């Protein structure tokens, strides 16, 4: 299959090693195969002649052959190991590199456990093949042919009879591949299923425990576990039935040899030495049988593994650095979304015709319903995903995509774009160019990904912290940052005081090997991390949802200073934090429905103002009473 030849391409980069170990294996095998001839010689000539000197010579010759075999075998193994390790080293680097380059869509679509398996377990399987596979197959073939040649020199007639064993060898190899291995594979894939059920349940153990569903989950695990047991036992049954079958057949052949050789001896055909030599040679045939079937098995396994591993290299996806990137050292921070359509590789458009223009240094607040596409929108700026590059349009609230021929089907109708316009039911819709996201007026796809991302700091909605010290986590973007810098970022994110209460301060390790942070503490570490990166464009995706209102305000205040000169996107569900934004953007179902400053939007009496009033109503209904009885001033 193609994957093994691709793997071989890698191996052939070390041509010297590759052919070196094959040669060594080949020569070693030759020494191994001809050693029975010495046996024949000793029994038939030396003993008959009764020459002690000759006996010593011949036995020493036998020892020499064994020694040569050892030397070449060792060399072969060692060189093969070298080559295998070289290839694996290269392959892993390439895989890692490629993982670093992947867009997030890749991580959405592939289970993390699966990705990990592809780059670890599968690579190990390939290494096994690199080390054993080629050699074993090669040695198998050389031994098979060599043994028969040697047999021929001993007794051509018997060799012809023994040639009937060849079909058995191949039948064995085939039966093994066809009958036994599918069950082995089934068992292995059931193992995969069992593993993911177990893994998911361990990670979600809190949910299992708090819903008291332990019995149900136990039964689910039991079912998969039992399924695995059944398949595994079946596989082992087949294995222990078929594996010893080849030695048995050859044993039977030796039995036959006793009869035919014995009767042949009477006729003066076969000598003792020849007989013993034959017995040895026939037993040696077991080896190629085993090796070939083993080799074929490894080949199949490695091929499947290679397919899985190369998959990672091959989905070197849509997201790629441009051939001639626009160079940037500094950016100003203007961000423009032009007619942006976007979907997560499905039919559903998550963003539909978004137009948004942000000037350098502006503070933009994104507001909108759950799932309205806020996170998706800001993910386009650092190119975690790319915009849809096909032309699309919205008709009666629904988005449609044009195909390559500029056609689209709406309901039953097939329509075509003429002069950049589409006519539906006498209604003309202008079709604009495919969407773009621009930073400083240049399409983000024209920058090198790294260049653009360096200038963007994001606090994700669900931040991931590494099992490292707090300091290393905050200094993630700039590991060389000084402790003072780390501290001032932490102060701005209002986490410094908490860190100081810890015994080891900034060197405290968090996560699995250290302390556990509360939700709000985690978010604030993530904010500090983004601030330290000193980005031109700062994106805060709902990053204070678990922070109390007061702390949030204080972070906000600290940010005000830090935000100066930065373009800032804030996604939040708390109105109180966004009133000061330069631009408030309301999103609904992937579209921008309103946009403007707080005052402007209030005066428009649209969605924003209605939300604002609803909220004020909810929050102030009670508080009004409170503050009023106090006689306190009531702002709005």
């Amino acid at each position, binding site marked *: 299959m193609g994957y093994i030849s691709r793997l071989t391409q890698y191996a052939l980069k070390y041509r010297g090693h590759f052919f070196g170990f094959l040669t060594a294996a080949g020569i070693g095998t030759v020494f191994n195969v001809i050693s029975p001839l010495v046996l024949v010689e000793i029994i038939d000539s030396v003993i008959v002649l009764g020459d002690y000197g000759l006996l010593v010579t011949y036995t020493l010759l036998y020892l020499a052959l064994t020694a040569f075999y050892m030397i070449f*075998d060792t060399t072969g*193994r*060692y060189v093969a190991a070298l080559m295998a390790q070289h290839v694996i080293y290269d392959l892993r680097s390439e895989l890692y590199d490629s993982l670093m380059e992947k867009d997030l869509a890749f991580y959405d679509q592939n289970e993390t456990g699966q990705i990990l398996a592809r780059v670890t377990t599968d690579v190990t399987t390939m290494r096994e093949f690199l080390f054993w596979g080629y050699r074993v197959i090669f040695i198998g073939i050389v031994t098979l042919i060599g043994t028969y040649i040697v047999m021929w020199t001993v007794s051509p007639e018997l060799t012809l009879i023994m040639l009937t064993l060849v079909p058995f060898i191949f039948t064995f190899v085939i039966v093994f591949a066809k009958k036994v291995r599918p069950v082995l594979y089934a068992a292995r894939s059931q193992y995969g299923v069992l593993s993911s059920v177990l893994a998911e349940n361990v990670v979600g153990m809190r949910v299992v425990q708090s819903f008291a569903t332990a019995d149900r989950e136990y039964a689910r*695990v039991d079912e998969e576990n039992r399924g695995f047991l059944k398949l595994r036992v079946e596989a082992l049954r087949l294995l222990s039935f078929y594996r010893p079958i080849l030695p048995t057949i050859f044993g039977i052949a030796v039995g036959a040899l006793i009869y035919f050789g014995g009767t042949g001896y009477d006729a003066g055909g076969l000598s003792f030495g020849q007989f013993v030599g034959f017995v040895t040679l026939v037993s040696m045939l077991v080896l190629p049988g085993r090796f070939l079937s083993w080799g074929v098995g490894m080949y199949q396994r490695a091929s499947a593994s290679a397919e899985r591993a190369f998959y990672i290299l091959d989905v070197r996806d849509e997201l790629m650095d441009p051939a001639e990137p626009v160079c940037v050292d500094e950016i100003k921070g203007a961000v423009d979304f032009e007619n942006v359509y976007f979907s997560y590789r499905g039919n559903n458009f998550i963003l539909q015709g978004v137009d948004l223009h942000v000037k350098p240094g502006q503070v933009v607040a994104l507001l909108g319903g759950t799932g309205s596409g806020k996170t998706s929108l800001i993910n386009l700026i650092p190119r975690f995903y790319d915009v849809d590059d096909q032309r699309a349009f919205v008709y009666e609230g629904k988005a449609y995509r044009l195909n390559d021929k500029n056609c689209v089907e709406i309901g039953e109708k097939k329509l075509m774009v003429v002069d950049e316009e589409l006519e539906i039911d006498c209604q003309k819709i202008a079709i604009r160019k495919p969407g773009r996201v621009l930073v400083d007026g240049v399409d983000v796809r024209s920058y090198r990904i790294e260049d653009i991302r360096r200038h963007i700091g994001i606090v994700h909605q669900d931040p991931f912290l590494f099992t490292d010290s707090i300091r290393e986590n905050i200094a993630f973007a700039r590991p060389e940052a000084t402790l003072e810098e780390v501290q001032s970022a932490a102060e701005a994110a209002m986490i410094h005081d908490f860190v100081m209460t810890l015994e080891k301060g900034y060197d405290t390790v968090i996560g699995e090997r250290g302390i556990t942070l509360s939700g709000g503490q985690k978010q604030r570490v993530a904010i500090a991390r983004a601030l330290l990166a000193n980005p031109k464009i700062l994106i805060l995706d709902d990053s204070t949802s678990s922070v109390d209102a007061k702390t949030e305000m204080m972070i906000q*205040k600290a940010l005000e200073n830090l935000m100066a000169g930065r373009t800032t996107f804030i996604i939040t569900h708390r109105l*109180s934090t966004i009133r000061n934004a330069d631009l408030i953007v309301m999103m609904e179902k992937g579209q921008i429905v309103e946009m403007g400053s707080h005052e402007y939007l209030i005066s428009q009496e649209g969605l924003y103002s209605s939300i604002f009033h609803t909220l004020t109503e909810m929050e102030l209904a009670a508080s009004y009473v409170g503050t009023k009885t106090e006689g306190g001033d009531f702002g709005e």
Partner: protein
Amino acid sequence: MSGHMVADEEERTYAYSDGDLLKRMIRYLLAYRRRFAAVSVLVALSIGVDIWIPFVLRQAIDVDFGSGNAQALLFTSLLYIVLQIAAWLTTFAYEYIMATMGQHAIYTMRQELYDHLQGMSQDFYDKSSSGRIISRLINDVERMSELLSEGLFSSFAQIFIVLAIGTVIFTVDIQLALITLGVVPVLLVTTIYFRRYLREAYRRTRKTISSVTSNFAESISGAKETKSFTREKKSMDRFTEVNRKDYQSNVDAGKANATFFPSIRFISGLGVFLILLVGGSRLIQGTITLGTVVMFIQFSDRFFRPILTIANFYTSVQSAFAGAERVFTVLDTEPTVRDKPDAIPLPPIKGNITFDHVHFGYLEDIPVLKDFELEIQAGETIALVGDTGAGKTTVINLLNRFYDVWSGSVRVDGFDVRDLTLESLRSRIGVVLQSPFLFMGTVRDNIRYGKHDASEEELLDAVEAIGASRVLSNLENGLETEVGERGARLSEGERQLVSFARALLADPSILILDEATSSVDIYTEYAIQRGMKRLLKNRTSIVIAHRLSTIVNADRIVVLENGEIVEAGKHSELMALKGKYYSLYELQIHPRAMKVPSKDRE
């Protein structure tokens, strides 16, 4: 949070001796005594057959060959064939039975371990990474598989074979027997010498491969972060380093390996050489038959192979022991929180909750809750507010008995939670956790998790009650949308809604919302608030939230600071107090109260 990665393993700690581990593993096999006996008989048979075969060959060479007795030849030849088939069938039979036993043992062990893990309390999960726990269940149990289903018996069988052959050959020819055995010390010395090398080499490869794996694992889990902060280059450098180390350690292991096995074979060749030399000269003298010499050559082969297998097996035994040790360590770790022997199930409850002088902390010497006192009436709605890290989540962790208090007690309807069965307690309490965890599957599957046999109507009711029907029906496939791993294909707010609906469907008597709607949009939140009265009817509920809108309607608001209650009362009362609560929320109500410099920028 870490993705559910399987971290590969580090070193043995030698907390258990090899003997203990072996005994314990064998105990799992002993559950199948009859099969055990059958295997023993079959193994003995197969050894017998194995030893018999070379004798038949000698018979053929020495007696039948050249005797002209075709009858005898045929008989010997057939005997030889029958013995071959017998060897095959006995081997097959015992290997198969062994496999079933071993695999049943593995199955049982895995199931037992999983069951045990379900019973482990939360502090256990705090301390060990999920990746490592998963690795116990998957890799470590698997490590024992080979040993239990083949290795253990085979090694015993091999030892018997060696002993049997060692004895039998003395009855045939003492001199040749001595020569054959004479090579054994050489073999042993070589094996022991190499074994140290190999063990060290393999130990190093295990170490380096585990750092390669964990490096990969963390890079995959933290892919988003790495990309956001363009750490790719630096991560790559770090990876290159571990990759290089792994390369080096594997090359070293390869070197040791490449010398070891061919050397062993050479030594066995040396044995044949000696047999040929001595046997040959005695053949010339006529003091031995050719058949005997050939038999010895065959025996020496049969003699060396088991020794080689045993030596070979050593590595896999080490690996099995390492796995066994880690598995048994988990099995021997008692959960700190567990049912008392006389625990009673919680009767249908009203929902009174009492925290009585509770002291608690996660780590020794660092108290989080100090003398925490709170009385909640059945049907009441309590809002817990306070700075981040004040201990709000901790309060509900105790109610759910994820942890046990240091002193004081937590009571539900007057029952100390420690006297109740965990199952009954937790099934009455519905929790919506701060960071929602969803299982792979559809939105519907996930909501149904709360109540397996819920009708479609109940399910839709729950969704409707929290105002999520609008949001969820907007999804690509509505309720049939696949949520992806841990819910990654939903937005944060959607995940929270699903997790909320899931808890509600379970219809708990006590409902706990730990920032359950922190990322939900204002309208949905509003809808929830409006439905809240109905939602919380007949339930005691504890709501943790930072958004004012979520808490104003609570019957009582409890303000926490550093693990202590500083204020409690209705919203209006607390505002009037102008204390902690007022300072927490004045900004949210009067944002203008704070001079905000950005205004100047316009």
